[in-house]
């Protein structure tokens, strides 16, 4: 009787562990925060290569959404996603903002000369602290904001054609 009980116990334990292990096979290994405050403060950010400062809310003209793409010339995936960022610049009703992250001005300029500048405006985050206000981790990262500065979507890593069409739908 005792042997049987311990067998059942062992069986349940092993199946429980197997289920947990099997489920975690498909889980994302990186932590992506939930329950975060999705509203961004209306911070002032310096424009790239000028001395002008802009408040994020003032960047909106009549557009429905704003796309902030965080990039750097030293970031290899940024170069790869640039093709898709260019596609975003063709979408109406969308303000395309680049945030140059911890970069040397000269290198960043060279990057844009090489593969083009699709951005409506480029802001500069020389010490990486502005990106923290946006709740970003690093480069590349793309945030979609509405005119109240609420984050509608956040894409960590390079964007692709699927994401481009998602953003297109959001701008409608």
């Amino acid at each position, binding site marked *: 009787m005792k042997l049987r009980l311990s067998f059942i116990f062992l069986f349940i334990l092993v199946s429980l562990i197997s289920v947990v292990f099997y489920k975690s096979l498909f889980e994302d290994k990186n932590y992506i*925060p939930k329950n975060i405050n999705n509203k961004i403060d209306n911070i002032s950010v310096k424009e790239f290569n000028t001395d002008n400062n802009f408040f994020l809310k003032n960047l909106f003209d009549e557009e429905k959404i704003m796309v902030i793409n965080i990039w750097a010339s030293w970031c290899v995936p940024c170069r790869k996603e640039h093709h898709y960022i260019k596609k975003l610049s063709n979408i109406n009703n969308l303000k395309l903002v680049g945030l140059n992250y911890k970069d040397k001005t000269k290198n960043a300029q060279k990057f844009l000369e090489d593969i083009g500048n699709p951005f409506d405006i480029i802001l500069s985050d020389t010490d*990486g602290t502005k990106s923290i206000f946006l*709740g970003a981790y690093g480069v590349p990262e793309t945030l979609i904001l509405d005119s109240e500065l609420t984050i509608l979507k956040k894409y960590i890593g390079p964007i692709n054609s699927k994401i481009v069409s998602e953003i297109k739908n959001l701008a409608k």
Partner: protein
Amino acid sequence: MKSLKLILFLLFFTFLNLNNVFGENAKVDEISKNLRCLICQGQSVYDSQSEFALSVKTLISNKLEAGSSEKDIYDFLKSKYGDWIVYDPEFNNYTLVLWILPLFLFIFGGFLIARKVIINREKNETYK
């Protein structure tokens, strides 16, 4: 004379580091030790040299200069990255089990041991 020079030499470096031990840097270190680096998971912001961690350290320093308290900084980062960024989890509904379970196991284990001891003692007494 030689030893005096040595003492002065050592004192010079001690004073150079004073800001790291007592000043604002010490506060930055203290706060960043309790923050998890989200890029290089498994390391604290203090230990990490990733761009993210370096930016967080700059931000802490800026915020301290602007007069923010330690709690303000933790709250700010939690609002941006969630509770997980802090190593010391707060007591709330989500972390209830985390806090209660060790206590429960401790009491339960103590109960099991006590029971065993009492049974053994009773057995020994009956043998006597």
